[in-house]
């Protein structure tokens, strides 16, 4: 439980925070400088009383709140081997930061290094973690990725004194640098003409220069890391950065494999960025696994569609806006109502058409070569297998319109599972070729007619999209409740769900306007109050209104629900005001909130995970979008529009 530290922004487990030190605010991730700027560190150390670990601040003090303190209070984390170690609950200590002692042990193996996340899990999320004497330009990205908030430049300085020149991608001894220009343009290197000049320098003078250079590189790297946290793509950056060493690459793989739960609990449910899946590690990302598991656990194919059609992905997102998908859809146009499309793709596995705009289905990019490696194939076929196991009974036939290796995956799954699949691309034939498309059309219509399925061009797609997205986001059953008695309007993918009683009078143009301006009040019985939900394609999510939330709550109960104390919120609800929150909530989820006395009811977006809302006392928990407030003293019910952001 912290008082002088606050997390301002999260990107999965990485955070940007603020540590208040008397009158100064230090931004984390923070580098404590071991050189001239030692005062930050010393100030923090004064909070620890002493660096000698036996002078841990005594328990009583750490258990008590000290609202007056001006300097962050810290405590030292000891390894289990330490004679003073005792197993205890670290979450109820009133501290602002923890320091990990004996941090060198982390370097023993990648597994040890990855164990930082275990510590992170043991301490409160709103407390900073300082891992001393370990940061280097090449590991600071992954340290931050694991949730480390404070590091120092001890190693860069000491390596500098040892004549080691550091760069973001690794280090080299001065003696091995050749006599070329220095491969850096920091202020130190800019003042030096060549490596030769460095080499000729007095050893002591050079030591200080290289130490300074190394520290500047660390700082530069930290700034990059901070930038990537803000833009929400630190994972991509980490995947890039760990390439420079086998150790760090192993750390990332171990994190993905052994600490999946840690990151699942912290990964945002959606973000605005394109997810780059350029490495082997990308297959193991939380976003990928979460998508796959929600397809199985939350998604339900529309029951009226009896024909499954498996098609390839497209570079353009959402897929249906792509040329190839337009061709596929035209080919089955006559029987749209009966055909259910799922898209096969790496690394997401399979994407049912209705949720193609969900994050990250509409937000990823992969290197396309036509070649699928063994891991990709295994993963994608496991996804397809799982989907068919769950849903095969809902279909009368499976058509596969895939070319090349992609079709092979289906053949393998068909053979393993004993499924009958009709392949509409011949060997070597492109899926978009005229012959293949004609065959697709003919086979589908032949089958539908033989099954007595009538021609039907209305695929009820729009309603299905909102229903599927609601299920995907809030759990099974949410969509049916939300869309029951409601009408969808708008141009795909900008769809809006209205109460059916009023939506019939509106035109598409009005809808588009409504979704842009939000609060425009219109004449007649149709105003904002009739909107239940709308798709925000920027996030690949369904945003809900207060009215929609009331309907949803009947179906999902306390899922995605935040219970607050009795107050009328402003633009934000702070963690301190949260009494309870659903564990499933992740950053950027749409959540429903209500005060304990039920006078306030509204919707917003989660800014931290549900468990974090409960465990934290500081930080923004929910960004409020709108709420209704019924208060006896006001003697009327009013609806406040809070923010449209």
């Amino acid at each position, binding site marked *: 439980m912290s008082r002088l530290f606050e997390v301002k922004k999260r990107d999965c487990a990485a955070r940007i925070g603020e540590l208040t030190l008397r009158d100064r605010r230090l931004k984390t991730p923070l580098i404590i400088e*071991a050189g001239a700027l*030692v005062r930050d560190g010393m100030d923090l150390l004064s909070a620890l009383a002493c660096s000698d670990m036996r002078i841990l601040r005594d328990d009583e003090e750490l258990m008590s709140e000290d609202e007056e303190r001006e300097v962050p209070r810290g405590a030292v984390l000891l390894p289990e*081997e330490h004679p003073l170690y005792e197993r205890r609950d670290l979450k109820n200590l009133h501290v602002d930061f923890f320091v990990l002692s004996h941090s*060198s042990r982390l370097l023993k193996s990648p597994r040890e290094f990855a164990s930082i996340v275990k510590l992170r899990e043991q301490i409160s999320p709103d407390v900073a973690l300082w891992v001393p004497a370990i940061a280097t330009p090449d590991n600071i990205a992954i340290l931050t990725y694991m949730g480390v908030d404070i590091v120092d430049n001890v190693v860069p300085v000491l390596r500098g004194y040892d004549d080691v020149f550091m760069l973001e991608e690794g280090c080299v001894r001065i003696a091995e640098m050749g006599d070329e220009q220095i491969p850096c343009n920091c202020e130190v290197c800019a003042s030096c003409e060549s490596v030769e000049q460095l080499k000729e320098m007095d050893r002591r003078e050079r030591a200080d220069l290289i130490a300074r250079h190394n520290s500047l590189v660390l700082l530069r790297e930290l700034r990059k890391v901070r930038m990537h946290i803000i833009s929400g793509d630190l994972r991509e950056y980490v995947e890039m950065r760990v390439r420079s060493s086998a150790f760090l690459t192993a750390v990332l793989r171990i994190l993905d494999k052994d600490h999946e739960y840690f990151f699942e609990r912290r990964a945002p449910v959606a973000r605005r960025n394109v997810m780059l899946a350029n490495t082997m590690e990308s297959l193991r990302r939380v976003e990928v696994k979460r998508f796959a598991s929600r397809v199985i656990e939350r998604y339900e194919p529309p029951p009226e569609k009896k024909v499954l059609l498996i098609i390839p992905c497209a570079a353009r997102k959402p897929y249906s806006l792509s040329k190839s998908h337009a061709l596929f859809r035209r080919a089955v146009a006559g029987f749209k109502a009966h055909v259910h499309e799922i898209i096969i793709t790496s690394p997401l596995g399979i994407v049912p058409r209705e949720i193609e705009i969900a994050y990250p289905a509409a937000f990823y990019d992969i290197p396309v070569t036509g070649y699928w490696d063994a891991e990709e194939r295994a993963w994608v076929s496991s996804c397809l297998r799982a989907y068919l196991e769950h849903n095969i009974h809902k279909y009368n036939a499976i058509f596969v319109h895939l070319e090349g290796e992609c079709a092979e995956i289906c053949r393998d799954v068909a053979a393993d599972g004993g499924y009958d699949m009709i392949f509409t691309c011949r060997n070597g034939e492109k899926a978009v070729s005229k012959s293949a498309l004609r065959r697709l059309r003919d086979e589908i219509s032949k089958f539908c007619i033989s099954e007595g399925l009538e021609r039907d061009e209305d695929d009820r797609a729009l309603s299905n999209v909102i229903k599927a997205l609601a299920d995907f986001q809030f759990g099974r059953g949410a969509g049916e409740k939300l869309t029951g008695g409601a009408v969808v309007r708008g141009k795909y993918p900008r769809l809006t769900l209205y109460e059916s009683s009023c939506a019939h009078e509106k035109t598409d143009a009005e809808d588009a306007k409504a979704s842009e301006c939000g609060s425009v009040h219109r004449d007649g019985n149709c105003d904002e109050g009739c909107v239940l939900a709308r798709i925000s394609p920027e996030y690949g999510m369904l945003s809900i209104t207060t009215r929609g939330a009331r309907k949803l709550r009947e179906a999902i109960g306390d899922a995605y629900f935040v219970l607050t104390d009795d107050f009328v919120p402003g633009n934000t609800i702070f963690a301190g005001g949260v009494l309870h929150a659903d564990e499933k909530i992740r950053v950027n989820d749409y959540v429903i909130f209500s005060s304990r006395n039920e006078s306030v009811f509204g919707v917003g977006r989660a800014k931290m995970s549900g468990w974090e809302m409960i465990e934290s006392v500081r930080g923004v928990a929910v960004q409020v979008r709108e709420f209704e407030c019924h208060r006896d003293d006001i003697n009327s019910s009013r609806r406040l529009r809070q923010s449209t952001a």
Partner: protein
Amino acid sequence: MKQMDGMSVRAAVFWVNRDFLMEENRAIDALTVILRTRGCRWRACRMCGFWHESVPSVTQDEILSQFSSALSAAFKKGLLRRDDDFMLKIFTSGSFFDDAEITDITRMRMLDMLSEFDGLRKIIVETRPEFVSEEKLNACISALNEANERCFMEVAFGLETADDFIRAKYINKGFSFEDFRNAALKVRKCGASVKVYLLLKPPFVSERAAIEDAVRSAIAVREIASTISLNLCNVQKGTFVERLWRSFMFRPPWLWSAVEAIIRIKIETEKAVISDPVGAGSRRGPHNCGKCDKNVKDAIEKFNLTQNLEHLECVRGSCTCMMIWNKLIEVDDLLFNAIP
């Protein structure tokens, strides 16, 4: 535990080197004899692996024969000469005054044997404080005087540190400063001198804290001890410290730390200060960068024999790695026992 029968009759380990005879302010030969007894009774100190050398089944006769054959072999091999002065260190990887290791009778017989060595000027024995009694001391000292009246006696205690917390929690030594003080005062009262072993860098103590602790400890014992021996913590097989070391949680002290501590202890105490840099330059022993270790070790050894600080002063700064060490000491507070 080793249970090898052949071991018990195996001879004691012994060697001869030069050591400083504090009483006469000069260096003379020193014969060190390590007797194989049943070993230390405590055997719980975190850095100590000496008791692995013990032989549980050894008999008192065997110990006596180990002792006598080591003594005669030292002369036979020409390591010592009859006419020269020398000192004798009788170590047991345990306590000389622990009756379970060496009985009263054996101790007396050993001291009796010393009558034939005219050159013997001093004997040094080691013990834990709980085995010290005035009775035992008096008996030993009078036996020694009878055998050789020119011979001093010194009793060494492995105090390690004057800080009870470090000794109890980090070293697990099992006795307090008070225990040591009482035993040491008895030694003084009986007419022998006291040697104190201090441990430079116990486990869980950082480099700078270790130096400070050694200096503080030396100051705390300067009224009692005649000789201060600074042991540089090394990584012995089968110890807790070895486990820490393998987990990157312990690094033996830098030799620069030893140099710094020795200089400060010498200046603060003006006692005989010695430090045998066992294993210096190896990964398990005290070490610097690898290039200067030999040099610094030699300087320490020269100082041991001369007590002249110039040997240490002039080796300081002789290697660029001292810059690294200086920085390390400077940022010690930021390290929280990391070994960067």
